[in-house]
């Protein structure tokens, strides 16, 4: 390829650069979301394990919920309720992260397509 025979198309160049930086930030965001989803998954799993443990306790066992450094006496039922709430919240968070991920991926693809179209239209123009 001989250098300098074609004038660099500034518009194309700019579009390329934009796409590149977009790709970097998007992949970063997706990575971050994946990591968050993983931790959330672990929290859910953990909560379910604790739930099993608590169910297997003999009736009338006194259980305390950790709040900061203190422990509050809480009925097994309440503890289960709180665990379920936690699981639910985590699952919702995961869901929103997933939808966000899908959106990001779609968005990126669209940008790629736009660039492709731009190239095609430039070629046709020439």
């Amino acid at each position: 390829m001989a250098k300098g025979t074609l004038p660099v198309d500034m518009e194309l160049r700019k579009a390329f650069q934009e796409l590149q930086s977009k790709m970097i930030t998007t992949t970063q965001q997706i990575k971050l979301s994946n990591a968050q989803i993983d931790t959330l998954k672990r929290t859910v799993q953990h909560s379910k394990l604790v739930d099993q443990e608590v169910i297997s306790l003999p009736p009338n066992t006194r259980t305390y919920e950790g709040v900061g450094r203190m422990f509050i006496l809480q009925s097994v039922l309440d503890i289960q309720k709180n665990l379920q709430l936690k699981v639910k919240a985590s699952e919702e968070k995961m869901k929103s992260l997933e939808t966000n991920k899908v959106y990001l991926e779609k968005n990126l693809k669209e940008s790629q397509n736009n660039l492709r179209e731009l190239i095609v239209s430039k070629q046709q123009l020439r």
Partner: protein
Amino acid sequence: MAGKQQQIDVSQLPAPQLNQLTQQLDQEIEFFSNSMNQLKLAQGKFVESQECLNKVSPDNLSKDILVPLTSSMYVPGQLSDVQNVLVDIGTGYYVEMEVSKGKQYFKRKVEYITKQMEKIQPVLQEKYRMKQATVEILQSKIQAMSLQQQGAAAKA
């Protein structure tokens, strides 16, 4: 100092100086990532405190609790006030506030730290970018040098 370096054309620097520059950048990167980690840690603590305050609610008044006397000793007791908490605002000052005010306090703190992190993040990224560029230039220089030496050796 950092501002000056950005104006120098890095590709013009000799190899030893480039090496020094990467080392300096490494140090700076470590410094900033350390601050980031500390900020994250502090933020986590504030979030936790904020969440704890949710449990200081009327339905927990007089409830049996285990009171942390030290980090390794607890005694049975009861929560005796769910309206107010004492907040350590730093430098030896403590303020009694309503639970809702306490929550606001920690929310503010979290926001403050987030802002600090947002300030550091781009600087950190810029340092990473600069380091990468410097390393690349350094490597190409070393390669060119070794090629030159090979050439000289072949001639001799």
